[in-house]
């Protein structure tokens, strides 16, 4: 280690340093730029809320808010006596969401448990990408699947079932969100420390006992959050219910009946005949706003749950 050359490196560094005063400004500019990108996400929300609010306000100048909340029928197209009872669309939306959850919750959770507790690394590596493909299938494809496969199948089992019903799209929406629940819950479960599992196994637990009594309780916040996010996705789902749910707004909780969801209504109107400036046109924003509030509520709930019940380990 010749001192001569050693001197040169430290000196070089010092020398370069003086020349590179621009580095200081980079250090200041970069965070400013990054902050800007972060602010865009806020602007997006602001944009959404503004877009919705402006038109929604116009809507409520034509239709009293009270009617919107209390009426039990949704017949915007009857020019003589239109009815705008949002509860009708909400019931359709919830009906589909509930059916979807009945399908997706047990299956998604069971898949998550299988993947995180039982499956070998190799199996997991094969199945997870397949689930991701399932999650990435365009919803319009699912829509046709519901219409041309699931509905006829259901009708062959239940001859009384209408051609349009809440059941078929509900089931297919459920299938669509299985991967979401499976993958988010699996993440939550695999992040439960190994030590916890080892502790339980060392006491003579079977894998099932480890999964149900130790891992699941420890991961419960993540699991519940995945449920809530999935519900929110089910509520926001558009094409499947548009295609297979019928377009009959109805205040019902009978899954065999045809219904309309909030999203399906928006699609119906925005691809339909309603003229700009009509009450119907503004109604899609009021429905959009309701939908936005609904999903906002679900998301806040999910976050609250995962924060409130986050286990300390």
């Amino acid at each position, binding site marked *: 280690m010749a001192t001569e050359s050693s001197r040169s490196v430290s000196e070089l560094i010092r020398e370069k340093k003086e020349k590179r005063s621009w*580095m200081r400004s980079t*250090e200041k500019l970069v*965070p400013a730029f*990054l*902050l*800007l*990108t*972060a602010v*865009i*996400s*806020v602007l*997006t*929300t602001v*944009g*959404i809320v503004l*877009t919705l609010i402006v038109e929604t306000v116009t809507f409520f100048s034509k239709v009293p808010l009270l009617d919107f909340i209390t009426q039990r029928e949704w017949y915007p197209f009857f020019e003589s006596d239109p009815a705008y009872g949002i509860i009708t669309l909400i019931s359709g939306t919830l009906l589909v969401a509930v059916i979807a959850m009945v399908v997706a919750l047990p*299956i998604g959770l*069971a*898949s998550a448990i*299988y*993947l995180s507790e*039982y*499956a070998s690394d190799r199996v997991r*590596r094969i*199945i997870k*990408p*397949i*689930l*991701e*493909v*399932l*999650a*990435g*299938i*365009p*919803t*319009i*494809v699912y829509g046709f*699947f519901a219409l*041309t*496969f699931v509905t006829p199948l259901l009708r062959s089992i239940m001859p009384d079932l209408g051609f349009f019903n809440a059941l078929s799209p509900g089931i297919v929406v459920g*299938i669509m969100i*299985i*991967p979401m629940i*499976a993958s988010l819950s699996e993440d939550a479960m695999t992040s439960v420390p190994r030590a916890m599992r080892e502790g339980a196994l060392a006491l003579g637990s*079977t894998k*099932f006992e480890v999964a149900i009594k130790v891992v699941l309780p420890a991961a419960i916040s993540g699991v519940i959050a995945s449920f809530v996010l999935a519900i*929110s996705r089910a509520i*926001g789902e*558009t094409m499947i219910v548009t295609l297979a749910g019928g377009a009959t707004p109805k205040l019902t909780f009978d899954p065999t009946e045809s219904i309309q969801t909030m*999203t399906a209504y928006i699609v119906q109107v*925005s*691809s339909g005949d309603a003229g700009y400036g009509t009450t119907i046109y503004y109604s899609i*924003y009021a429905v*959009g706003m309701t*939908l*936005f509030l609904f*999903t906002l509520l*679900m998301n*806040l709930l999910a976050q609250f749950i995962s924060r409130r019940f986050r286990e300390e380990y």
Partner: protein
Amino acid sequence: MNYINKDKVAKKMGSRLAVNGIYKGIFMIATSFALVVLGILLYRIFTQGFSFLTPEFFQNFASRRPSASGIKAALVGSLWVMAVVIPTGLILGVGTALYMEEYAKKNKFTNFLQVNIANLAGVPSIVFGLLGLTVFVRYFDLGRSILAGGFTMALLVLPVIVVASQEAIRAVPKELREASFGMGATKWQTIRRVVLPAAIPGILTGSILAFSRAIGETAPLLVVGAFAFVNYLPENVMSTFTVMPIQIFNWASRPQADFQDVAAAGIIVLFIFLIVMNSVAVLIRNKFQKNY
């Protein structure tokens, strides 16, 4: 004074093991359910659309005659839209994630940002369509262009990219950052030379999945105003366009039965796209997984 009766414990063991076995079976069946559905879906679409999947299908524009119909404009349109979505989504998404993970202090604003991102992730895609129509098409006067559609889709996938990037950035071991800081590196040097390279596989994996979802989205682009019939290729980002899901939707609502099969062929192409993208994501993930 023993409380544990060894015999009883031994006897119980059999039934516990049986329960374990039964549930393992149930869990396995549940997992395969999704796979079976995927199988049925693929089978139906392939048998229906396969006969239209000819080379001409890729070379032709849409036509009133099923046999002359092709997906060229929609395929290229989707690619153009992705060419806008990917850079926009990555710059905004990774930028936001970097800001939140590396620069933001733990304060109310940061917390608000995080909540905001999570909420955006849950906003129905059709609402993004309304936003895109109002802001990009009308307010910024971009018209019904690829740029307007691409920006709308970029905002739609933004939350997913942000969350995936945040996770990837967080997963970069603290030790690597320490090593870099320990040598007198500045924050941005550390990020650019250590954190980002190490996080890129994770960022890409999450982002590709987000982009592959964008490829299949119909509703927001319908609202923003992608055309349903286009018989030319876009020239630049200001061109009008159509995309695969909209073309498929258009075919599927035609009266002629043959168009249903053309739609199925379109779905196959879309699927191939998705599977290629997902495979790339999986490859990246598997290749870089065990680096540290």
